[in-house]
């Protein structure tokens, strides 16, 4: 005998409803997170640090030794 709360198998699977988010609110949430002290004190690994420092570099020519 089946328990009443078990799925019967003949019911249609529930379709998740559409979720909409406001871009403004999302950006505000990101900004709040970035300003949080825990974010500022987050420890970075070398890969993340290198990404932060990647930019267009001008390579310098070494001066000859005197």
């Amino acid at each position, binding site marked *: 005998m089946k328990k009443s709360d078990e799925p019967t198998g003949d019911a249609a699977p529930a379709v998740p409803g559409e979720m909409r988010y406001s871009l403004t609110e999302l950006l505000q949430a990101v900004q709040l997170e970035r300003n949080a002290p825990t*974010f*500022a*004190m*987050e*420890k*970075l*690994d*070398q890969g993340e*640090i*290198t990404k*932060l*420092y990647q930019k267009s*570099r001008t*390579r*310098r*020519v*070494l*001066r000859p*030794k005197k």
Partner: protein
Amino acid sequence: MNFTGKILVVDDEAHIRKYVTLMARTLGRPTVIEAANGQDAVAIFAREKPDLILLDINMPRMDGVETLQAIRALDRDCVIVMLTSLVNRQTVEECARLGANDYLRKDVPQAEMAAQLQRVIEEEFTDEPPAPPVPGP
């Protein structure tokens, strides 16, 4: 690349300076100068004009961030690499904003630190002369 430039190693701990100096010497034939604090580093920088500065952050009297600002005020072009165990996002981003060229972790095995430093040198320096300007039509 066989690095032959002048490197200024700035760290308040003598054994770390020695460690970094030995590592730097594996990258070529650099001239290595050492400074034990930020104030000395600024004075040595003005006199020696090194090509590359490896700069610790936690130092007494004048820390690495203040030293970075002082040297950048004197010279906008020299390569300054922060070499530190302090890796929180705030400090990493602040040093980038103040003009550090790169930021390397000090609390890693020597081989990894040497590989990272080699990468920085390859990215920042070349031993080839700049190409002559292409004449216009």
